[in-house]
C-alpha cells in the first residue's frame, strides 16, 4: 500500500537513542518545504512511541511506518 509516497529527504538515525532521533528529525524537517516528505530511519525501539508524540505535538503528519529487521522507517509529511 501507498508505495507511491514521494520521499524528499532521508535521515539516518540508526544507532542513535533518545533523544537524538527526534532532535535530528525536528532539525531535518525544518529544512524541507511544506508538503515534502522526510523518512527517518531508526534502530531505537522507543522511537515509535516518541515519533507519534512528536508528530502530535509538532503538527507534522506521520504518513507511514515500516519495519525491516531492527530498522524502523517513519515517513513524515511537513505540514507547516
Amino acid at each position, binding site marked *: 500500500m501507498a508505495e507511491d509516497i514521494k520521499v524528499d529527504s532521508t535521515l539516518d538515525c540508526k*544507532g*542513535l*537513542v*533518545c*533523544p*537524538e532521533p*527526534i*532532535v535530528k*528529525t*525536528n*532539525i531535518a524537517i525544518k529544512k524541507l518545504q511544506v508538503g515534502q516528505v522526510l523518512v527517518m530511519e531508526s534502530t531505537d525501539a522507543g522511537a515509535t512511541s*516518541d515519533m507519534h*508524540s*512528536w508528530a502530535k*505535538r*509538532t503538527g507534522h503528519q506521520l504518513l507511514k511506518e515500516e519495519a525491516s529487521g531492527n530498522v524502523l522507517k517513519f515517513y513524515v509529511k511537513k505540514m*507547516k
Partner: protein
Amino acid sequence: MTEKPKRIALIASKGTLDMAYPPLILATAAIAMDMEAGIFFTFYGLDIINKHKYNYLKVPPLGNPAMPVPMPNILGALPGMTAMATMMMKSWMSKANVASIPKLLDMAREGGVRMIGCQMTMDVMGVKKEDLIDGIEIGGAATFLDFAVDANISLFV
C-alpha cells in the same frame, strides 16, 4: 498561528553523571517538540555546566542499590570504587550510543535551551563565569521563577 509555545522549566540540582542526563534529555527533546525549555543549574547541578568538571561527572556506587552490577555498600565505600562504577557506567552508556553530557549540552545550546547558572551557588563554591561553558546566563531564584511561572511543566532533578 500565534499559539503560545508550551514550556518546560527544569532545575538541575545534582552533580552526578546519572542525574545530569534527565534535565538535558528532557530539555533537548522539548526543543525538538517545538517547546521552550530552560534549566536552572543550582548547587551541585552547577558542575554540569562547569567546563573543568562536566567531562568528569561521576556515579557513586555507595548507597545506590540500582547499579546494574549490585555492589554492597561496604565495598562501594572503598577508595577507587566510585571511579570504577563511573567507568563501567560510561562504558555501558557509550555501548548503547547514548550522547555524552558535553554533546547534550551542545544540542541544548544549538536548540536554544535557556541555561541559567545559579549566582548564589557560584559565590558559595567559588565558581566564576569563565569556569562555565559558553552560552550560560547567570541569575538567581527570581530569574528562574520568572521563566517557570509561565511553564506548562516544571521539574526538579
